[in-house]
């Protein structure tokens, strides 16, 4: 199947058992899904575990997908469900990380991408974001990350998290305000 095939065409091929189609879909969403999960969880280990789980779930549930729904919504809906399971398992929302811990982690053990290119400023920015995102209530953080990482529109965000559009809009507005204040405080 050609590289410019639509998500839906690839998903239909994958439903028929085409592993190549899955590889193309995976290449399209690997980065955004990964960042969404890692940033939503607040740590790479949990995020990566969920990341793997989401893709396997997509493979298992591919028969349930229907072409009238966009694949992106379907994929992030699975991710949302897995996140809820994760929260239930961990019994508490891992939302908050001490700023000192984040800064220390960012400075002493930056990720490979950060180590390669980033200056100290970039590392500090990343740490500030990590802190501020972690400080958000999970539903607000999820709304913001879905919007920014996956590029979903508000109605789709609402669909993924299973709330009314007004509620999704409200969550996003709260998230933006809190993040702005938090990041200003970090400078």
């Amino acid at each position: 199947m050609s590289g410019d095939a639509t998500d839906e065409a690839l998903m239909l091929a994958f439903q028929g058992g085409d592993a190549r189609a899955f590889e193309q879909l995976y290449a399209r969403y690997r980065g955004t899904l990964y960042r969404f999960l890692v940033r939503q969880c607040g740590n790479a280990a949990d995020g990566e575990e969920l990341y793997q789980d989401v893709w396997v779930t997509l493979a298992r549930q591919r028969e349930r997908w229907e072409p009238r729904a966009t694949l992106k919504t379907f994929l992030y809906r699975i991710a949302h469900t897995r996140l809820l399971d994760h929260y239930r398992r961990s019994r508490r929302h891992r939302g908050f990380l001490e700023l000192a811990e984040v800064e220390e982690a960012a400075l002493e053990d930056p990720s490979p991408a950060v180590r390669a290119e980033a200056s100290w400023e970039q590392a500090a920015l990343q740490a500030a974001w990590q802190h501020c995102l972690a400080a958000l209530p999970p539903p607000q953080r999820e709304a913001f990350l879905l919007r920014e990482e996956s590029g979903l529109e508000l109605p789709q965000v609402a669909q993924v998290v299973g709330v009314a559009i007004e509620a999704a809009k409200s969550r996003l507005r709260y998230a933006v305000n809190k993040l702005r204040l938090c990041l200003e405080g970090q400078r």
Partner: protein
Amino acid sequence: MSDYDALRQLYRQLPAEEPSANLDAKVLAAVNAELEAEREQRARRQRRWRYQVPLATAATLVLAVALLLRLPDSRQELLEHQPDTSQEMSSAYESRAGIVADSVNAPARPPVMQSAPPPPPPPVAMPPPVIAPPAMVAAPAPAPAPAPAMELAMPSVMGFMDDRALKQASNLEKLLKEAPGMAAPEFCTRLRALWAATEATGGANGEATGEAAPECPTTDGNHQWPAPLSMAWQVNAGLVQKAELRR
């Protein structure tokens, strides 16, 4: 620029982390394993259907054909053994009469004899041909003739006889018992009355002919009547020597 746009711009400055090659490989391997397992499961299901359906169909056909082939044999075997039992039972009339006599003599006896073996012939009531060997079906216990005959006939006859038919059968049995030594004219009178009663009621099994009673000879010699009272009797010196139902 709105606050939101500024925030988004700032967010875009974050490094775009991506899954490691190791994680990519793990995911792809897990999904491939999932696909493989499904394929295997589907193939197993197809294999199962491929053999089980024809096998079940063939077994059903064999069973059906075997039953069809076996059925006439069983019937034949039953028919072949029938004379043996009927020798002991004399005839259907005798059986019916016997039942009545038995029920008259022992009124307290429950109407349904649970220990009675299944009745002989009517083909519908035949025991399953494959299971029951013919000898068991046809050969009764070596008991005195009337009793087993009555027991054998009773379940099937009881269901069909109404009160009037029972009474006629009882009268017939009585006449047969009392006939030896009876004056021939008296015997004929009672026999004609029985004929009339049978015609009037239609008979226990619908055997009425719609005909008037035939002539009843009282002279010495052997005489007989047609159905429904298929009777044979012998007169000697104006007295009935013996009377019996003809088969």
